[in-house]
């Protein structure tokens, strides 16, 4: 064959580049999709530390989680939703907040520095005044 036509090595390089391009594209889009997943994940934080992370969509049985601290609290988890259900703190703002079921929902106990948040952002509002 002719010396100056594409060589075997050229095809190899072209092949590797094409595979890498296709693979990286699939990988990146897949990774992003996983990150923006539809699953609702609730995190419970106490004093800025995550004490528990729960995928609310995989919860089958109702579950009680006890949080100890200056004031003891109980969190209740059901399929797709989570809330503070009991608290020893005086104002009970956290309990009165009720169920959290949408992305971006948050319930906070200031005296105990405890918080439940469903990760992600609400589709309807960015923030609500107090």
């Amino acid at each position, binding site marked *: 064959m002719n010396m100056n036509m594409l060589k075997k090595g050229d095809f190899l390089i072209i092949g590797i*580049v094409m595979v890498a391009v296709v693979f990286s594209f699939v990988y990146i889009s897949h990774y992003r999709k996983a990150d923006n997943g539809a699953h609702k994940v609730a995190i419970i934080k106490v004093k800025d530390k995550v004490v528990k992370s729960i995928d609310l969509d995989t919860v089958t049985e109702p579950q009680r989680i006890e949080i100890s601290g200056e004031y003891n609290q109980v969190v209740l988890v059901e399929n797709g939703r989570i809330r503070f259900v009991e608290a020893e703190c005086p104002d009970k703002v956290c309990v009165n907040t009720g169920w959290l079921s949408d992305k971006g929902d948050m319930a906070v106990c200031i005296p105990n520095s405890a918080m439940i948040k469903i990760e992600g952002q609400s589709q309807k509002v960015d923030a609500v005044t107090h």
Partner: protein
Amino acid sequence: MKYIKGEANMRKKILLLIIVLVTIYLSSCSKLENLPYMNFGTEPYENVDYAMGTVISQRIYSNNAEEISKKVMDKIRQIEEDMTINKPGGEINRLNDSAGRDFVKLSEDTLYVLEKAKEFSKISNGAFDVTVGPIVKEWGVFTDNPSVPSMERLQDLLNLVNYEDIIIDKNMPGAKLQKNGQLVDLGGIAKGFAADEAIDIYKQHNVKSAFINIGGNIVLLGDKPDGSLWKVGVRNPRGPEGSYIGIISAKDKAIVSSGDYQRYFEKDGIRYHHIIDPRTGYPSDSGLIGTTIVSELSIDADALSTATFVLGLEKGMDLIEKIEGVEAIFITRDKKVYITGGLVNSFEFEDDSNEYEYVKKR
């Protein structure tokens, strides 16, 4: 010879084409973030923290958002330290301790807040007054043991409430409270100031899009990275935290609510809330259960939400209409929602509880 030269050109062309294609692909990565399924450039940084006795959340769109949010929290903690009366130390405690005696040296920040406080006291004819401190303390709404003071006691303490007794010396710089026993409580304005300071820090770091929420004092910087407006829910005064009666769409605005639901206690079946009318010494009974102010500065919105809550619907509306660039939403006890003219296009009534009536104009 000609044939071979053509083939060499062909090979060069193919390799060049590959290089061009790969370059286009790689450079397109910077554009990929515009696609909804790979928006890494527009992922916001979110932070929730506690200070000033409340929850503070920030959402920042920036490369070094975490560092910026920490600077904001440092600044807020500094403001809290200077202006709190719920913890020992700080400038306002010193001012209060020296009441009736000495001038006290104050930071620029504290002096600015005091001046603003006096300004809003004046334009609201004392419906907002930071010298209401002795009465707030007597009720103890912010403590674990609140109680209803006797009428005599409240009458005595009312003599100590007068914003004109805050004497400011700009040259010192400092201030003095005229009468012994007077007490300044910046609880109705300091969070607003802190939120404005946060926005300044964002701007210093070239952030174009962010918001901060200091216990309901919300300030929006710019619009969202996709060019849409921020959406802020106006709290339903009788619903749980997070529920709202409507949505304000805005950018570069401060939005603050006041209401009788924020803090209260019950005694003998009567509900006593935390917003004391500085003119009567009792929890404000103006017929409003919630006010929301939209303005440029959060410190203004904070003071005005309290002032209008105390003034009531008619006088509150009159006050807001007198001030340029400020709009308001008022919710009355009979669950009617009123707005000022400037909000007609940016406020959307959306009441999932079906308990409220949207009246718009009074």
